């Protein structure tokens, strides 16, 4: 089974040289730590920076340089800064190659819910709806089950949706799955996890085609 860093490491294998990538808050943020050697990837944060660098040292902290999670950041050499309308033009205009975000629920048709629990949590969608509505390549990074042990990979989302039919791939602590003709296609197992473990933890319908390889991380 993977921890959050393991999930980030596995998703980092999806990166390709020259890509511009938007990472959401939480597990996705960790991916920046695991970019494979030799690849140049530019990270976008939707509050208005391309070429986001690592967190600052104490001396480098600048209140005027944060990411969309409101964390202090640095800018890489060659970074660019812009306003929010330009930032979402990049997103809506499909100039960003990969979006990685967290989710509370994903449905087998690719629907995603991650912004609201009615009556309990209303924080707002931030940029998530714009991101999922436009990106062609959307990976969800999340735990396979919630804190109560219930599956987060469902036949149908129960929470208010963030976007419809948009998720292409899901990487969890247990598996890598792809949304394939209305079902979850099992691609890889996490180290030490069996197909049976994944079946038990998945409420949605699975496609299990032949031997499922273990992740190589």
């Amino acid at each position, binding site marked *: 089974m993977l921890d959050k860093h393991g999930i980030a490491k596995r998703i980092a294998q999806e990166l390709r040289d020259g890509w511009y990538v938007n990472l959401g808050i939480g597990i996705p943020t960790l991916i920046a730590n695991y970019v494979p050697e030799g690849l140049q990837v530019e990270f976008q944060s939707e509050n208005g920076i391309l070429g986001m660098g690592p967190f600052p040292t104490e001396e480098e902290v600048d209140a005027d340089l*944060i990411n969309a999670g409101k*964390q202090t950041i640095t800018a890489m050499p060659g970074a660019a800064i812009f306003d*929010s309308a330009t930032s979402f033009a990049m*997103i*809506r205009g499909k100039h960003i190659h990969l979006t990685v975000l967290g989710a509370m629920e994903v449905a087998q048709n690719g629907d995603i819910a991650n912004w609201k629990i009615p009556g309990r949590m*209303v924080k707002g969608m*931030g940029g998530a709806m714009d991101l999922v509505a436009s990106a062609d390549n959307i990976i969800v990074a999340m735990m396979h089950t919630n804190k109560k042990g219930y599956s987060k990979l469902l036949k149908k989302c129960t929470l208010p949706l963030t976007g419809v039919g948009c998720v292409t791939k899901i990487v969890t602590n247990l598996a890598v799955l792809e949304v394939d003709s209305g079902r979850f296609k099992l691609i890889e197992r996490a180290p030490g996890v069996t197909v049976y473990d994944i079946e038990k933890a998945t409420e949605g319908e699975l496609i299990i085609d032949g031997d499922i390889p273990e992740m190589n991380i």
Partner: protein
Amino acid sequence: MNKVVQSASEAIKGIKNGMTLMLGGFGLCGIPENSIAALVSAGVSGLTCISNNAGVDDFGLGLLLQKKQIKKMISSYVGENAEFERQMLNGELEVDLIPQGSLAERCRAGGAGIPAFYTPAGYGTEVAEGKEVKLFNGKPHILEYALSADFAIVKAWKGDRLGNLIYKGTARNFNPMMAMAGKITIAEVEELVEPGELDPNFIHTPGVFVQRIFQGNNFEKRIEQRTIRT
């Protein structure tokens, strides 16, 4: 032409109960601190505030919320503010949550003379309820209307007496679009300079969008999530 005013309290003159304001900033980054303090002192209420976030309990727009000066918030993300959540759940505060990119574009459109536009963001979600849907290249989009405000209040790094503005870092965020969309736009700057001191090639907001400008003081620039590399 004299756009320079001497203080935040002079800058906000004319802001009355029930008006709609736009306030720049993302989280606490790039917010007009001095103007918010002046609005608290002036005690105007029943405000509709368009701002990406609602501050934290004791800073930013949270200060106006504490004093119950805001009737309605139009934002994309309002977490990290317990008083906000309390007022919303008690029905004391109206809240309109808008996808962040749609919020930015609606402000831009408001300033650019575009009354409405179609966007894919929010299609199939509760954000799309009651909105016109149209297919473009086979993909559904929803109609979103431009936003404007009686006053827009923005924060810039440097500005000159003609209202030309330069922002610093990610403190730019919503400020340029909001500057365009205010009937009256107030710019609060860290450094007010003479015309000619700013390189025209690097102006972010041309002075035509700004009606009042002043140099703020004692910027706190509070950091919400101080995150250090170890």
